């Protein structure tokens, strides 16, 4: 059926219910499987990574499918998607797949077309030089960084996503195209702690963060918001009712209680938080989702704040590299970043990465006590001697 080119398309404004189709749900997945996937569905016996980004899956029937995984910016234009289609039509029978982490996967059951496909993918570059389809993202390396919208399309961000991910990915590129780490390292990015990307269980999480309490738009708040909802939105009870000098209903903020979560702004647009000097980036590390060897775990805050230094975020890159390099040098084979930090102890994590340990990293929110040390089992590092000196325990 042809796409309509009428301005209103098939929709009739005067009769909006006419011919309306609803609740169709998504297309059925089966119609988009390449033949080799249909034929071997549920029959796969094993797989091998032939080289970074290239996998072969072998079926019980002996059939093989080769997959080439390519990195991608998840913000993508129709121009790029059409180019993906050209490649899929040329080499892959018109099929293509995207992964949960925004990689593109081209599949073929033919070894000869695999070589042609790889060569074609690597030959395609943007006019400014960056790869359009870098091959990698498998095994013990760093795959695509999942992220959120940032300044491109969101109203609550404390930083930008696409630019930070581009900048960090450029610097970590050797780990995308290689498999030289002790285990996979999942890097994720969210531009505020709404975390629509749910980055809180990542090996390394980059998180946009506000540091100034909301400004109250006193003149307009009673017109823009339900004030009781704005008050109820605050998880720490920092917002209370107030009146302006001329008697208008408004709210006041106990600034010292604010934890900068931004939930009030989500509920009430008259309470903006964003600020050039206030906003920045927090780094968390050591989380994971897989149940492999150890249980899934949350990432921990290891860098409390870094500035939004657009467009390349040099401070963020420097700290991420410190973490990745210390991990690469110190961890055992199969050991995820968080498992390594726990084995050597977090005090050694800070020593080996060179990241400073500050008071911001000691939990003082709910359930904080669970993270405090209640034993004499610790390792001595310079940070420990600094405490001993401060207490007059040593000279």
């Amino acid at each position, binding site marked *: 059926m042809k796409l309509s080119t009428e301005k209103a398309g098939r929709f009739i404004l005067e009769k909006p219910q006419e011919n309306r189709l609803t609740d169709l749900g998504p297309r059925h997945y089966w119609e988009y499987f390449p033949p080799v996937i249909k034929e071997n569905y549920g029959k796969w016996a094993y797989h091998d990574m032939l080289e970074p980004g290239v996998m072969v899956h072998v079926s019980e029937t002996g059939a093989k499918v080769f997959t080439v995984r390519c990195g991608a910016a998840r913000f993508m234009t129709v121009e790029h998607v059409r180019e993906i*289609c050209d490649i899929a039509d040329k080499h892959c029978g018109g099929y293509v797949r995207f992964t949960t982490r925004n990689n593109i996967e081209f599949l073929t059951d033919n070894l000869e077309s695999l070589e042609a496909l790889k060569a074609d993918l690597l030959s395609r570059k943007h006019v400014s030089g960056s790869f359009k389809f870098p091959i990698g993202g498998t095994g013990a390396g760093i795959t695509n960084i999942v992220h959120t919208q940032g300044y491109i399309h969101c109203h609550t961000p404390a930083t930008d996503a696409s630019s930070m991910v581009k900048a960090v990915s450029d610097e970590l590129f050797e780990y995308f195209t290689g498999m030289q780490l002790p285990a996979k390292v999942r890097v994720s990015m969210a531009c505020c702690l709404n975390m629509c990307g749910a980055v809180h269980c990542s090996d390394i999480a980059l998180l946009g963060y506000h540091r100034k309490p909301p400004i109250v738009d006193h003149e307009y708040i009673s017109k823009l918001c339900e004030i009781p909802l704005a008050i109820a939105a605050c998880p720490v009870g920092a917002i209370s009712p107030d009146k302006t000098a001329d008697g208008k209903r408004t709210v006041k903020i106990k600034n010292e209680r604010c934890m900068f979560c931004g939930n009030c702004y989500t509920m009430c647009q008259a309470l903006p938080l964003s600020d050039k000097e206030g906003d920045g980036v927090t780094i968390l590390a050591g989380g994971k989702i897989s149940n492999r060897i150890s249980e899934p775990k949350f990432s921990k805050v290891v860098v409390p704040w870094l500035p939004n230094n657009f467009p390349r975020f040099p401070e963020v890159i420097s700290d991420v590299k410190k973490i990745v390099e210390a991990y690469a040098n110190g961890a055992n084979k199969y050991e995820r970043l968080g498992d390594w930090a726990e084995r050597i102890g977090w005090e050694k994590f800070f020593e080996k990465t060179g990241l400073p340990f500050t008071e911001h990293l000691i939990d003082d929110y709910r359930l904080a006590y669970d993270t405090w040390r209640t034993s004499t089992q610790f390792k001595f590092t310079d940070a420990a001697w600094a405490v001993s000196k401060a207490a007059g325990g040593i000279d």
Partner: protein
Amino acid sequence: MAFEPKRPVKEINYAESRIYTDAELNNYTEEELKNFKVKHEIPMLEELEKGPWPSFVADAKRNALHRKKLADGRLLLDKEGSEDLLGLLEQSFEEGETHWKHGGIVGVMGYGGGVIGRYTDMAEKYPSIAHFHTMRVNQPASKFYDTNFLRTICDLWSYRGSGLMNLHGSTGDLVLLGTVTEQLEPIFFELTHVMDTDIGGSGSNLRTPSCCIGKARCEFACVDTQELSYELTNHYQDELHRPAFPYKFKFKFDGCPNGCVASIARSDLSFIGTWRDDIRIDQEAVKAYIAGEIKPNAGAHGGRDWGKFDIQKEVIGLCPTGCMAMEDGKLVIDNANCTRCMHCINTMPRALKPGTDTGISLLCGAKAPILDGAQMATLLVPFMKAEPPYDNIKELIEKIWEWWMDEGKNRERIGELIQRVGLPKFIEVLELPPAPQMVKAPRSNPYIFWKEEDVIGGWDRDINDYRKRHKR
């Protein structure tokens, strides 16, 4: 295995559906692109055209040039959307603040989700993106496509939208970024009539479910994640489109405990494939791994020389329960003590496979930090068969929703409600017996909320009886 869609579906053939000619699709040269400057100064964004990683700026620029060169009338939206978006982004970098306002209430009739209103606060300077709404298109399970589908949606989105999209959004939808209010219904009609597909969830709805690659190309998949995702997505279309919940609710389906779609960290109901019989062992393949004939972990560590594979150190020694051993040259597993962590299977995939009596573990309540801190999903049902039509699963889902809709406060996720009211209350509502599998350890405080009926004689007592035994 049933692979039939629930209703007849329309075929999409790009040769028939297309709007643009080949000449229109290839309407600029590399040379023109090299020399192309967008209408705003964007030095910081141009810096991001460098470096090896795919540049979203370079991509946005070619969309801008392509649109600029299309003849008048070949786009329904302003041609300069990509250029204005880049200008706005550059200005946000300079000022360290976003220029998008709170979303307004826009959508398609009869639905309360799938469309997110978006307006800039710089409409005078960037008029072509004054309205820039998002539409979420429900992706096919595990995100396989053919080029007829993708090329058709590209033509539709060039013509009636900005040509900018996300493949994919965090929840899993194919996200169309940027159109105007008057085009929302026409786009919805084209999606449903021509592409025979639907939009996804947003707001206090069931959000678009998503799943791992499952049995399509993974030997570890214990359950058919695509089928389960497709069936529940279709079965709960009403919940997906029409907000009736206290807040969002997410389903995600992982085929095994490796958790490739991260369901345990980011879904209100996390379905994770597992098995309850024994790990299958091919002793010959075990020997081949020991002899170094097969690379461990499917070659995932090929970028560094880690030395010869050592089954004792790399598999048996790392088993979290210590339930493995070599005996008389054979690998033995004490399956009753295995916690199915997948390490041995991941490391020796040609020798070890999950059992064949498979199903799901069901976990509940994960969420990101807003509002009371992040939560991971809590184990609710250790094992459940997962076979069509999944009535056992649907029954449990509906019990959970019913309780949450009764008890949940506005914007309270199910995981927060369980924390507020307590896990014992939740399992009571679901009529599940308590089990040590649900906790890491029993409680260490003795503050048990005994109920009156738990205690012989109840709580009503007479002070005069007491005083007969105890003087004041």
